[in-house]
């Protein structure tokens, strides 16, 4: 028996025949009908940065100032649910915001990790949760049977328990939690396509802010941080320190069963493959190393300058959903100059050139 091929799910980013700058000109100068049409077309890209750009255009076209909205109070609203080994989401609520710790360590790690990530974005970037609109944070633990993964499904966090032989529970590393929630931020701000170079940038951005969440929590300077992703995740006996190293991509593990960390640290080692959406978890080593270079170039707390530059790049309306490493790098240099100065731009430019990315 042959079943019908499954239908193709429409992608989030609908390509538009007209570039945004032309649409924006129509919004500014066109008739009311033309403006409505252009706004409707532009709103197909619903990422936050585009909405911000459009709102600014509309506000300018109205040529009158409105009072700024009062910022919402920023405190985390967390819910942790338990799937109890099933793959049904979200599962049973086991701990809500403000409730005391429970006996299940995975529940408490998820609760604390969500809180640390929320606090990081709030304190460092004045960002109110994943969507900057105070989104309530939901995480499900004990998902699936020996499930070797953690992910953000577009609405919530999901953590597996790991198989116990190669991987421990996925709540164990704070940077893993920061990594997953940052996928939500990236989806909201930049909508980087999860394929090839924009996909590797999407992954790298999650590693960058995942690591910064941990560094911020520990009060570490760039020089003192371990720059590891997934420390504690490898089960006892596995030969390795973590899943990835931003400081030295390709050196995190080398194990007879797990295999060897195959991340490149330079464009010369860029891996072309059809697996893993074009090697998004492999080639992310290149922009990861570039960020590390920037952080060390500035010195001190990495979130203050390097992190700020990356965050504003993610929010830039110049960042396309299909950005190449080089396009992303160019925006980081421009943001470094505009946020800081020409010397900062030079540090960022040198950091990308050191990993073989043209900028």
């Amino acid at each position, binding site marked *: 028996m042959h079943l019908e*091929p499954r239908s193709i799910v429409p*992608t989030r980013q609908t390509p538009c025949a007209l570039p945004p700058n032309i649409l924006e000109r129509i919004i500014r100068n066109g008739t009311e009908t033309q403006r409505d049409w252009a706004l409707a077309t532009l709103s197909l890209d619903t990422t936050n940065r585009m909405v911000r750009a459009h709102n600014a255009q509309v506000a300018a076209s109205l040529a009158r100032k409105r009072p700024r909205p009062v910022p919402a109070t920023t405190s985390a609203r967390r819910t942790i649910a338990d799937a109890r080994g099933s793959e049904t989401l979200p599962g049973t609520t086991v701990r809500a915001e403000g409730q005391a710790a429970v006996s299940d360590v995975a529940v408490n790690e998820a609760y604390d990790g969500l809180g640390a990530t929320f606090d990081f974005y709030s304190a460092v970037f004045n960002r109110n949760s994943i969507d900057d609109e105070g989104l309530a944070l939901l995480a499900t633990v004990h998902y699936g049977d020996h499930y*070797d993964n*953690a992910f953000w499904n*577009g609405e919530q966090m999901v953590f597996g328990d790991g198989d116990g032989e190669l991987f421990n529970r996925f709540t164990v590393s704070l940077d893993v939690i920061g990594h997953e929630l940052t996928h939500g931020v990236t989806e909201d701000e930049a909508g980087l396509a999860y394929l090839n170079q924009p996909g590797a940038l999407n*992954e790298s951005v999650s590693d960058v802010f995942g690591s910064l969440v941990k560094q911020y929590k520990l009060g570490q300077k760039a020089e003192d941080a371990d720059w590891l992703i997934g420390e504690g995740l490898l089960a006892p006996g596995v030969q390795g320190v973590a*899943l990835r190293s931003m400081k030295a991509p390709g050196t995190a593990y080398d194990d007879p069963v797990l295999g060897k960390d195959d991340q490149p640290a330079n464009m010369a080692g860029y891996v072309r493959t059809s697996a*893993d959406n074009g090697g998004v978890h492999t080639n992310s080593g290149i922009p990861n190393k570039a960020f590390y270079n920037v952080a060390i170039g500035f010195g001190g707390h990495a979130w203050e300058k390097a992190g700020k530059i990356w965050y504003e790049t993610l929010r830039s309306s110049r960042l396309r959903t299909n950005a190449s490493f080089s396009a992303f790098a160019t925006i980081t240099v421009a943001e470094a100059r505009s946020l800081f100065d020409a010397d900062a731009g030079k540090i960022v430019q040198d950091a990308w050139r050191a990993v073989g990315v043209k900028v």
Partner: protein
Amino acid sequence: MSGGERVRVVLERSGGFAGRTVRRGLDTDDLPSAEADRLRALVAALPAAPGRADATGPDRFAYAVEVDDGARRGRHHFAEPVPAEAKDLIQLLSRAPLLPARG
């Protein structure tokens, strides 16, 4: 479905937070006849044409199922959540012996 013919199936799982690619495989020649029949039935239930690899959600697993039944070879791509017609086959293959990574 013509029972009895040899079918070899390889599951390649890639992606996930770790980004590891793991290959596992089953061969009806190595299975007791009841299990071999089940494998043939699950393979026959796959969509007719090999699917195209769509991008998955962040950190989700991507699955490629390679079928070789002598007469035809096909590669079917699935992203999580796996569609119903492939779920049992992927579950079965997820417990199959490991194969060396593709060179």
